Structures are given as C-alpha cells and as structure tokens.
C-alpha cells in the first residue's frame, strides 16, 4: 500500500515535467506591466529556441527582449507599437500568429481553399455516379414473370 502511495507521488512529481524557472513576474516590478508583458510574450516566438514562446524561453536573447518590452510598456507604448517594433527587426517570424498580408494569404486561407476544393470534387463525384446509374424499368412481360415467381414462392416456403 505504502509503495503504491509512493509510486503515485513520484508520478505526480514527474508528471509535472521539468517546470523550468518561470519567466513570469519579476519581484519589485509593477504587476500591471508584468501582466501585459506576460500576455505579449506568449504571442511571440523566441528566435533562439524557435518552438518556445518568449514567455517560456530562458535564452539570453529572450531575456533581453523581455527587458526591451518591459521598458517600452513602461514608456507607455501600446501593444501594437511594441509588436511593430519587433517585427521591423525580426520579421513576421517572431509572431506565432502571423498577420494577414498578401504573403500569408496562402497560409491563412490555404486550408479553406483545399476544403472547398474537396467538397467540389465530392459533389462532382456524387453527381457523376447518379448520372451513371440508368433506370431500367421492367417490361410488362418481366413484371408478369416476377409476379408469378412471387406468388409461387409462398407455396414453396415449406422447403
């Protein structure tokens, strides 16, 4: 029993993964500024470890960029201004959600285009199949034969 409890405890601890030092609020900083910094840096990519957000990354550059953003927030810059400051230097790549511009149209709308194309192909296929099936109504002779067979069937049911 004890072992099971230990095992669960170990799993709980390991299950948390390596939490890493959170890049969250720095003590002694204005919490409102830190909140905005946290929200902004979640949307931004760390260029050193590209699959990490600026909020999570411990890379030196990420720290510098957080410092830069913090200073700009304190200087009264809007989020939009800060984002354009960063994209002017690092390009759209720094944004996890790229802006909708002609160069990103394919990225944003490509999946929908493929979906619509898929529907189009599906509908065309269904219509083709419907057209391919030719209705062949029974002639009166065939109808009579069928009737005979059906009525005869009831007699043979004992078999």
């Amino acid at each position, binding site marked *: 029993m004890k072992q099971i409890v230990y095992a669960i405890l170990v799993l709980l601890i390991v299950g948390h993964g390596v939490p890493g030092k959170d890049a969250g609020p720095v003590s002694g900083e204005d919490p409102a500024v830190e909140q905005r910094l946290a929200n902004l840096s979640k949307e931004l990519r760390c260029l050193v470890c590209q699959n990490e957000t600026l909020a999570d990354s411990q890379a030196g550059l990420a720290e510098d960029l957080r410092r830069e953003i913090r200073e700009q927030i304190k200087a009264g810059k809007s989020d939009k201004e800060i984002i354009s400051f960063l*994209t002017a230097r*690092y*390009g759209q790549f720094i944004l996890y959600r790229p802006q909708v511009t002609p160069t990103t149209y394919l990225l944003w709308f490509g999946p929908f285009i493929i979906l619509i194309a898929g529907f189009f192909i599906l509908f065309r296929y269904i219509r083709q199949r419907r057209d391919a099936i030719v209705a062949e109504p029974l002639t009166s002779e065939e109808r009579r034969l069928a009737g005979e067979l059906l009525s005869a069937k009831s007699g043979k049911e004992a078999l």
Partner: protein
Amino acid sequence: MIKYLIPLVLFLGLVIFLAIGLNRDPHEVPSPLINKPAPAFTLPQLKDPNKTFSAAEMRGKVWILNVWASWCVTCRDEHPLLLEYAKTNAVPIYGLNYKDQREDAIAWLGELGDPYVLSAADVDGRIAIDYGVYGAPETYLIDQSGTIRFKQIGPVTPDVWTNQILPLVQELNRQGNR
C-alpha cells in the same frame, strides 16, 4: 488514363514541397532589414572605451559589421577566415562585440588576432536588438548610404564571401565611384 495519374502528380508535388522544406535551415530567418537603413548607434569602442564609434561615421563607405563575442563558439570557427579577408583590404570589417565582458573580448582578440578596424562594445545587447540579431556570429554588409545590403546569419563561409559578399562590394564600389 489521366485520371489515374492525378494522385501520382499530387504525390510528387507533395514530395517536392517536403524536400525543399526539409532541406531548409529553420534557423535562417529572413531579415526584414535588408535594403533598409542600418539602425544608428553610438557605442564605446572595445579597446578604448573613452572613444565611441557610430554607424554614421561610416557614411560614404561600404563596410561590414560582424557581430561576435568571446563566448560564441562559432565565432571562433569563423575567425581565421575574417583575419584572412581583412588582410585583403577588400572591405573594412568592423566588429560589434555582443554581450561580452571587455577583458574576455580583448583577451580573445589578443589570442586569436584582430581582424577588425575596431570593435564597438554592445554590452547589454540593445543595439543587437535593433539589428535583429538573434545569435552570433551575424554579418551585415552596409553601403555608402548606410543601407543594409546583405546579412549572413551564422559564420561567413568562403563560399558566401567569394560568391555573395565580394561581388556585392565590387558592385557597390562601382556605383559609388560613378
């Protein structure tokens, strides 16, 4: 017959896209600063902190700004090439010493040689942010009007130097002398 070839064509298209995508280095992020004015800066010189160096001083010249640091391993690989290229006097190479300790940086240059006309010390990396630096080494080629014409992410290789940087330098000098 064509109907059966469509999936094959689609598949080949997919293969081509994936082949291109997988052979690209995701660390090479295209810089939005190409053909934009090089951000202005004035920084203390590494070897003589009482003097400053500013990008504006380089107006009218084609020059190279190489971002380096003593802690940067790849810079060490790149270094012998820079020394060699500096000797050819093809284009002046200036250094941006990125987030480094002054003593370490000077010792590094003393040990390995100094290819730079001078290095400017960007101790807290602020100027590097203006230049969109996200690693070292990075190299910028800046023209007479102070416009960034080329950026190399990672070390300058002999191939990049001979086939991209040198022709561009020659071209810019030709235009400048006209």
